[in-house]
Each structure stands twice: as C-alpha cells, then as structure tokens.
C-alpha cells in the first residue's frame, strides 16, 4: 500500500500563492468549442485585421528586412525605438495629448505596460479601484500582484463620480492604501460606454483631490463611430497624475504586439527599469514594422476603414438585439470600440446558460469574468468586432432562442443560482474570434 499518492505534478508544493487560481476551467473548455466555425462567436475580442492592406504590409515588411535587417533583428533600447516614440506622440495628439517622446515607454502590447505599472506601484494588499465591470486582462494583472481590487459603479457614462468619491472615503476609513484608479474612459471593455468630457473632468478632479494616480487605458479611443474627433483623453488635461496606456493592437494589428505607456518623468524612469527586467527590450522588428507603417501607409485612413467596419457590425448587433432579445433584456449602445454589455432578464444566469448557448452554436462571455467579487451573473459581454454582420444577426437570433428556453427552465425551478466561486479563467484566450 502507498502512503503518498501521485499528484502528476512534482512541483505542486512549490507554486506561489498567486498561482492558486490558475486552474482548468469549465468555461475555458466551452470556449474551446467556440473556436469551431459552426459557432458564431460573440465572445472573443480579435480585431478584424483582414481589413488591413496586406499586400502593402507584405511589401513594407520585406523592404524593412532588406534595408534594416541587422538592426531590426538585434536587441534595442529598453525604452523603445526613438523614432517610434516620436510617432507615438503624434498618434496621441489625436486624443488631445501633448506628450514628449522621452515620456513614452514602448512595450510588447499595452498589457505589458499595465503589468509594469502595477509592478512598480502595488504591494500585496494595496487597493486598486476599477470600474464595475472591468477589463479581465487588468484584473488578472492586479490579481497577480495580489492587489485588493474594489469595483466602483458605472452608468451609461462610465465611472460614477459620486460612487468613486464614496469608495475612496470608505477604503481610506478602513485604513487601506489606494494606489491606482484604473479606468477605460473610451468605448469601455466590456461595458461599451464612454465617459463624456464633464464626467472625465469630475473623475480627474476627484483623483487630484485624493492624490491617487489614474491609470488610463485607451486601446479603443480612435475607434469611434460618429465621425467626429476622438474623445479627449484624461491625460490631455493632467500630465503628472495620469499614466496613459496606448496600443496599436486595434488601430493596426494585434499580432504586432506593440503598445506603450506615457508617464511622468519619475514614473517613466522606473517603468523603463521594470520593463527591462521583464523583457530586456521590446522587439525591434515589430517596432520598426509599426514605425514603417506609420510613415509609409495612410494610417489615419485605415483607422477610418476600421471605424466603418466596426460601425456596420455594431449596427447589425443592435438591430438584432432589438429583434431577438426577450423582454427584460437591456444593453449598452457603444459609440465605438468592440463591445456591448447585456443585462439579462431577472432570474437568468449568464454562466449557467453558457453550455446551452454553445450547444446552440453561439458564444458570449459571462459577466462574472469581469468582476473579482462574483458580480455579473445577470450580465454578459457581446463582441461584434470579428464576425460579419450576417453572422452577428444569426448569433443573436440563436442567443435569443437560448434565453427563451433558459427562462422557461428558470421559471420551472425558480432557481436562485448560487454565487459563482470563479474557479479558473472565466474568459476566452486571446485568439478566439
């Protein structure tokens, strides 16, 4: 007889506490099915890169290797390529930011920028205030650094100032330290809402009064649908109290993995050192590709192409929701970006309903993945960036049918679904369309 069994992983006692939530997940298993072409996936957030001028990019990339290969394939600066940083400053002018190339730190995607910002600011137990709901990738970073994440209410204009003020007061009264206010002001992921100018001013004023740094995440800011100028970034009106995160994942291509942080001097110094310790340097090859693209391709025109593609898909989604959703369902109307946020009729549970939806060949992301505290059972995220309008309509029709049958089921049992214990990842991997 054996006194000690096998755990099939000899290192099981060696993992850090923060790895505790890294488990297999039923939800991830279901998303594996969602990658099949039969399934209309309204779950993932893959940009529609097929709209890019592929021939021009192919030619540009070949020329880049031919003419600058030895440099492109070599280590580069930890802070990022100086030419690209100048170009990033130009890009940020679109959202009203008057920055300087020295303040820019280029990273492999803005996700890495987010990681290093949290790395240099947050000790375990420090409080980070986030919107309710918030970007799942940010929640993962905060969890990894063992932050205490507290959600602050949103409405149709994003983060609610009164709620922010009250939360700050309550947290401070409990003796805890708030390090960051993390916000996605424009075309929010997952909520699809946008802070108006007045709302941004109020949030900035609260942060300034409270002495709390704002971490402004703006990957979708240039993807508005109304044809007007993009929303003005919070960072445009405050240089010292805001770290701004930008990305080329949605305006050029997610596979290039180039993002950046714009930070005040003291923060930037530490960001460069932290970034170097994590990655040594961002890839010269991808930085040069972006730089070449920005200098040789009509990138502003291409953003208009993306805006038009996503606007058409957003319209298809909203039209289908109005047609197929059961009574009692509400949703946000995004003015840009990739997502709409649904609130289900009372009694429905988006996580419990997902297997039935996948069986009906439609996928979404249950709301619970966008909270750290079990909220979101009656909510879900729909993404319209990847499927074409016809597929979106079909997906929403299938979802409506699933919801009707789920309503019947819930009425039969009158079930009060228990709070989910958030075991394992609740959202799809990044490569799900």
């Amino acid at each position, binding site marked *: *007889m*054996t006194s*000690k*069994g*096998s*755990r*099939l*992983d000899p*290192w*099981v006692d060696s*993992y850090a506490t923060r790895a505790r939530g890294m*488990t*297999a*997940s*039923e939800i*991830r*298993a*279901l998303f*594996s*099915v969602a990658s*099949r*072409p*039969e*399934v209309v996936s309204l779950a993932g957030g893959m940009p529609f890169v097929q709209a890019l001028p592929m021939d021009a990019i192919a030619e540009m990339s070949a020329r880049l290797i031919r003419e600058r290969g030895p440099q492109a394939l070599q280590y580069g600066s930890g802070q990022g390529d100086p030419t690209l940083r100048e170009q990033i400053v130009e890009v940020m002018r679109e959202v009203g930011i008057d920055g300087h190339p020295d303040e820019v730190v280029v990273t492999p995607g803005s996700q890495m920028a987010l990681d290093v910002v949290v790395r240099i600011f947050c000790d375990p137990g420090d409080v980070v205030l986030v919107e309710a709901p918030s970007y799942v990738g940010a929640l993962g970073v905060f969890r990894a650094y063992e932050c205490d994440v507290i959600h602050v209410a949103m409405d149709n204009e994003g983060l609610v100032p009164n709620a922010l003020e009250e939360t700050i007061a309550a947290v401070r009264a409990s003796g805890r330290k708030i390090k960051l206010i993390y916000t996605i002001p424009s075309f929010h992921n997952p909520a699809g809402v946008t802070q108006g100018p007045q709302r941004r001013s109020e949030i900035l004023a609260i942060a300034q009064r409270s002495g709390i740094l704002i971490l402004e995440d703006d990957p979708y800011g240039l993807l508005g649908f109304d044809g007007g100028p993009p929303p003005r970034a919070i960072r445009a009106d405050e240089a010292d109290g805001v770290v701004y995160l930008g990305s080329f994942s949605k305006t050029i291509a997610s596979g290039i993995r180039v993002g950046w942080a714009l930070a005040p001097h003291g923060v930037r110094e530490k960001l460069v050192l932290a970034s170097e310790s994590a990655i040594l340097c961002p890839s010269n090859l991808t930085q040069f590709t972006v730089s070449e693209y920005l200098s040789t391709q009509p990138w502003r025109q291409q953003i208009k192409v993306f805006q038009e593609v996503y606007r058409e898909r957003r319209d298809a989604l909203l039209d289908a929701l109005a047609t197929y959703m059961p009574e009692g369902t509400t949703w946000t109307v995004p003015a840009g970006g990739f997502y709409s946020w649904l609130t289900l009729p009372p009694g429905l*549970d988006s996580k*419990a*309903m*997902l*297997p*039935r939806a*996948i*069986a009906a*060949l439609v996928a979404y992301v249950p709301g619970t993945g966008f909270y750290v505290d079990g909220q979101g059972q009656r909510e879900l995220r729909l993404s319209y960036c990847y499927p074409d309008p016809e597929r979106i309509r079909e997906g929403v029709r299938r979802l409506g049918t699933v919801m009707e049958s789920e309503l*019947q*089921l*819930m009425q*039969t*049992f*009158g*079930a*009060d*679904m*228990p709070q989910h214990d958030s*075991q*394992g990842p609740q959202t799809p991997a990044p490569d799900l369309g």
Partner: protein
Amino acid sequence: MHVVVLAGGLSPERDVSIRSGRRVANALRAADPSIDVIERDVDSTLLKSLRTDAPDCVIPMLHGAAGEDGAVRDVLDGLGIPYVGSGPDACRLAFDKPVAKALLRTEGIATPRSVALPHSTFRELGAASVLDALVAAVGLPAVVKPARGGSALGTSIVNDASELPAAMVNAFAYGDVAMIESFVAGVEVAVAVVDTADGPRALPAVEIVPDSGFYDYAARYTAGSTEFFVPARVSQEHSEALAKLAVRVHTSLGLRDWSRTDAIVTPEGAMFLEINAAPGMTETSLMPQALTNAGMDLGELTAYLVRAAVARG
C-alpha cells in the same frame, strides 16, 4: 499502416478530447514508427476525407455526444472502416447513465439509487413537488448530473434540498435529462479494462482523492489538484471485487477494446457509478496511470488494439 485519430468535435469536452487524441497519437507513433498516424477533427469534411484517404483504422478519441453515443461509430461501420473501441450499440448503452445503471442492476450489480427525469416532467408536474418526491426516493446528500456527458460537467453534490433547483438547472445546461443519484460516501476509484488475447483484463484500480473533496472539472484537469493512489488503498478483497465488477460491466454492456468503470468502495463493497466507453487519455486522466502501474505502455496497447481492429475488419 495508416491510422486516423479522431479528436475534438463540438462537445463541451472538445478540449479534453483533443488532449486525449494527441496523447494516444504520440504514444502510437512512438510505439510503432511504421504506423502513419494523423489526428483529425470531426467536421463536415470528415466523411469525404475518410473516403479519400481510406485509413486502415480509426481511433475515435471523441468524448461526449457523437463520440461516445455511438453516432460516429455507426458512420464508421457504414463506411466499413475498422476502429478501436466499442461498437455503436454498446456505446449508446454506456453513454446513457440511467440506461447503463438500469441494465447493470438487472445483472445484480450494485449501484446507488437514482432517478432520471427530463426537464419537461418538472414543467408539467411542477418542480417543487417532483423535487420533493425525488428527495424522498433518493435521499440526501445526492449527486445531480446530466444523464449523458462526462468530465463532471454540469454535476453538483447537493447536501440540502434548497440547493436542488440550482443543481438541476446546472445539469439541464448540458442536456435535456438529469439524473439524481444518492450520494454514497466511500473510496472513489476508477478501474480500466482492456481486451487482451486472453479476454478482458482489469487494470489496477486508481483511487481518486481531490483536494476540494469533489472530483469536478478543475480537479480532473488541473495537475496537482487531486492525489491519486495506484493501486487504490483498499483491501485485497475489495480490490478483487473491483476488478470483477469492471470486467462484468465491460462484458455486460458489450464493450470492446477498452473501457473505464467509475465506482465507489464502501465497507459493504463496491458500487458501480459510471462507465466510459472512450476513457480519457490526457496527462491527468486515470487510465494512463493504471496502465503505467500495470507495466503497460499506452502506445503498445494502442498498436495492439489497432491490429486487433484491422483483423476483425
């Protein structure tokens, strides 16, 4: 020889199936490099490619519906392509938990009390009164699970009647019929059976001790979250009873090549819980652990079963 390993499909166990298929394919390649092994998903192009490629044998490593309910095997029979594993009729019996339990009960095999009902029954008769009747029949605690499906998807343990409605909803998320089974405390084990030249042979029982107390999806597929004992820490008498039980289940249901019986051991003896006609073969699955303990190689076993399948045509 040309062998196609089928894995993936549209079942919620797609991911598990792909991992099982990959492991079996790699093991087969390593055991016999002369066999040309390809892995393939099940989609609308499958039949055309099977007709074109005309493999000598197929290994269905599909979990969940279509893979384990006999449908794909019916198609393979129709095409005249040999395959490893049970035939469609045996799969149908094994995949439907209430049917398998009912059949095995008639063979005198002990299994916990259970009732299986479709959603429509609850709607027509009123959920509250039906649930009351079920609790009276089965008792608490109970296990609620979909009648068809694996990997513990949609499965809950219910300790209090107030938890039943949510557990039923979870189970119905994975199918139209749910089964409520009396929870039996004991040593949780799995016993794999393989067909050899000398007939079906039970492998050493694998004892399952999940950290969470419940062998759910996370406990099954997160390495390190469950402790396994092979052979199971049961008496010699229980060990022999388990082996007999698994072989009886295998033969009673007409299963072929390989199967895995899940059982619970109490001081009174072993009780049948479930049977798997397409056992998982992932890195954390049970049958590969039993094979290793028995000194058998997954690749060599698969190669043997492939040849046996080709020989029977």
